[in-house]
Structure formats: structure tokens, C-alpha cells
């Protein structure tokens, strides 16, 4: 369990990191907090030729709160966002989900953007980004673009990032006065989610997002539903997620969790 050999670049500026990415393309990987990538290197699930360490770039270690959007730079660790004084008021959903994101010992290193770049289907940060309708800021040496979370996350550990791009930041819209709720079932808190659900109040009703079931987190927007209309919507959603059996849970158990947790969260947000 040792990584294959690679060159290591300690980037001293963002341009430098982008230059190496432009030159090396898919042979290079960005190393941020390392809590997912390093494990993949150790298991040789990833064998890049070059690692570009961006954690010494102060310009990426920023949380900006501007005009209804909180933008979290690629160097911001999960523990840093958790300790950000504005979190509870501006991003209550992230405040609820972060304690479920890994453990104290991994949040101290792992970054918010890194978790989204890794795109594990059961991870909390991509789920929160999707539930809030957030976006991913991609940058290469040639261009910058922004993708909605749903367009960025394309499959299990697959994203729309091009080989020469890195995630510069992600932005979460502040849902003013909005209600939200989060619940997860995992073997232990901090382990991978069997099912994680996030609900957010919208102008017309509620959005429910589910992680850990399909290849990507999936969200549905509903009007104010309750009673059997809500049960029917949840049941249809649970089946549309195409749950699979695995080591941790059966597909049926996952569908049950989506229905049960989903109903509680939707009611909580709409109440």
C-alpha cells in the first residue's frame, strides 16, 4: 500500500499550478487536503505522473461572503468552514452536514472543494452543494467557467472537470431565512453514508436531495406536499434512485430510509 512514483510540485502561485496542469493534463492531479486522493494513491487506484500541491496558496484559503453567496476556496479545510463564525446563520445546512463529513482527524486536513472534486456518491459536501443549488468554479490556464453542482457531478467519482482544470472554489447560495434539515444513516457517524438526505425550503415548497443511493446525489423540487401526495412522491423518488445492494445495506433498506427520512425532513422544513 505505497503510492507509485510521481513528481511533486509545491505550487507557489495559482498560475504555476495551472501551468503544470496545462502541460501535463490528465497525468497530473491536484493535491489539496489529501484525505481522498492520498488513500487512492496508496491503494494505487490513482497513479498520476505529477502531484500538484496547492495547500500553500494563501489565495485559495479564503471564505468570501458576498451578495447572498458564500464562496469557499479550494484550500479551505472542512474544519475551517466548520469554525467559520457565519456558518450557522448563512449556511445552516452545511453546519448540520459537516459533523458527518469524516472524523475530527480528517476534517482537520480535508478540504470542502476536495470532497466535491472527489465526487463520492455518499459524500456530504456534494450533497449540500446540490441541495442548495450551488456551483463549482473551474479554472484552467486558458479559461474560467462555472458549473451548477448538478452539471458538475456526472457519475460515481466522475465530474465534468477537464484535465487541465482545477476547482478554484465552490459557492453556496445563502437561503435567506430558509429552513433546512439534514439526516444521515451510517455505520458510525463519520463513516460513509448508507443514505444521507438534505431538505431545503424553496419559494414554492421544498427541495429534497439524497446521497449514498444513486451514482450521484440527486435532488427533487416539490410544491408543498403532505399526506399521501408526499408519500407517493417519496416512493417514486426512492425507486427512481435505482438503489443497489452492497456490503452495507440492501436496496430495499435504502429505499425505506429515503421514504422515512425524506418524509421527516420535508415535514420539518415545511412546518
Amino acid at each position, binding site marked *: 500500500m*505505497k503510492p507509485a512514483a510521481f513528481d*511533486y510540485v509545491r505550487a507557489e502561485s495559482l498560475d504555476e499550478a495551472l501551468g*503544470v496542469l496545462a502541460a501535463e493534463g490528465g497525468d497530473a492531479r491536484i493535491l489539496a487536503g489529501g484525505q481522498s486522493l492520498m488513500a487512492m494513491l496508496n491503494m494505487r487506484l490513482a497513479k498520476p505522473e505529477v502531484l500538484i500541491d496547492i495547500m500553500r496558496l494563501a489565495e485559495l484559503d479564503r471564505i468570501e461572503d458576498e451578495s447572498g453567496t458564500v464562496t469557499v476556496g479550494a484550500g479551505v479545510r472542512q474544519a475551517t468552514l466548520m469554525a467559520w463564525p457565519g456558518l450557522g446563520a448563512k449556511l445552516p445546512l452545511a453546519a448540520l452536514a459537516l459533523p458527518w463529513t469524516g472524523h475530527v482527524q480528517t476534517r482537520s486536513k480535508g478540504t470542502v472543494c476536495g470532497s466535491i472534486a472527489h465526487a463520492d456518491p455518499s459524500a456530504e459536501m456534494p450533497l449540500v452543494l446540490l441541495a442548495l443549488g450551488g456551483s463549482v468554479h473551474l479554472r484552467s490556464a486558458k479559461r474560467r467557467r462555472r458549473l451548477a453542482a448538478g452539471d458538475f457531478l456526472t457519475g460515481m467519482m466522475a465530474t465534468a472537470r477537464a484535465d487541465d482544470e482545477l476547482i478554484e472554489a465552490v459557492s453556496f447560495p445563502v437561503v435567506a431565512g430558509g429552513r433546512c434539515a439534514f439526516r444521515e444513516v451510517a455505520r458510525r457517524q463519520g463513516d460513509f453514508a448508507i443514505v444521507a438526505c438534505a431538505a431545503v425550503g424553496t419559494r414554492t415548497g421544498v427541495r429534497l436531495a439524497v446521497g449514498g443511493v444513486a451514482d450521484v446525489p440527486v435532488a427533487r423540487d416539490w410544491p408543498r406536499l403532505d399526506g399521501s401526495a408526499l408519500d407517493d412522491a417519496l416512493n417514486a423518488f426512492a425507486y427512481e434512485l435505482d438503489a443497489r445492494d452492497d456490503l452495507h445495506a440492501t436496496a430495499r433498506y435504502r429505499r425505506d430510509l429515503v421514504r422515512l427520512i425524506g418524509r421527516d425532513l420535508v415535514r420539518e422544513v415545511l412546518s
Partner: protein
Amino acid sequence: MSRLASDRRAPVRFTLNGASAEGEAEPRLLLTDFLRHQIGATGTHVGCEHGVCGACTITIDGHLARACLTLAVQIEGCAVRTVEGLAPAPDRLGTLQSAFRRHHALQCGFCTAGILMSLDHFLREHPAPGESEIRDLLSGHLCRCTGYTPIVRAALEAAVELARNAGGEKG
């Protein structure tokens, strides 16, 4: 730009438990192996090598870290603390270590170095923790021997003692 070639060893200078230290590492060398094999600091243990078991937990610049998910070259210029730094003297245990001993919070000891580092870091910031906070912290570690209960007891007792001696010996 500093680019270290895959097949070359680069110097790594850092401080280990307050003393300056230095070694050489190829980019792919994990910090666990660097500390144990190059520096000779074998207190940091290696279990899973993918961030799950917690045996290798240390602090880097005051933040908890899995040494197995860290490259040796990344600690250039950093302050690293390992379990070797906990005892006040070679023949004396720190407060937390003594509590572990009294409560039989270790059997084989494989997990202990990492758990001590997590608790040492945590108790500095949370002088009066509750049991659930300790258990939450321990969820980042696997222990195959103790069933965790003695570890929780030792941690709670050490917290009280440390708070009482605040300003005195830490450990």
C-alpha cells in the same frame, strides 16, 4: 517553482516535538515511513495506510493529521508532534498517559499512539469535555482490544486532572 523529481530524494527539514530534524525523501514516501524508517521515531504506528484506523495520527502545525495520508515532502518547514513528545521525561508518563495506564485503556497498544495524539490535541482545546464528545473524537480511531470504554474513562479522568493542574504540566 519547486518540482521534486520522482526518482530523487529531496531534503526535508522540520521540527519534531520541538527539536529540529531533517531527513531525505522521494516524493512518494509517506510520512509514516519517513518518521519510522528514516528518522527512527517508531512511536507513530501504521495500520491501514488509507486513513481509516487512526493509528498514525499526529499533529502538523497544530492540526491533527493522518501521517499515512501525508507525504514526507509536505512537512518541509512544519512543526510535527508525535507520541514521543507526550512524556515530560523519558522515565515519566504524562497525565493522559498515566490515566491510560490506570484505566487499562490499552492492551496491545497498537492504536494507542494515535488515540493519545487525538486526545492530547482535543483536551487542550476542550478542557471540560463530555463523554459524547470523547466518543465522537474516538470515532476516528479503531481499537481491536479495549472496547473503548476504558479509553473514555481514562480521557475523562485525565481531562479533570489536566484542568486542575492547568498552567502546570501538560501531557
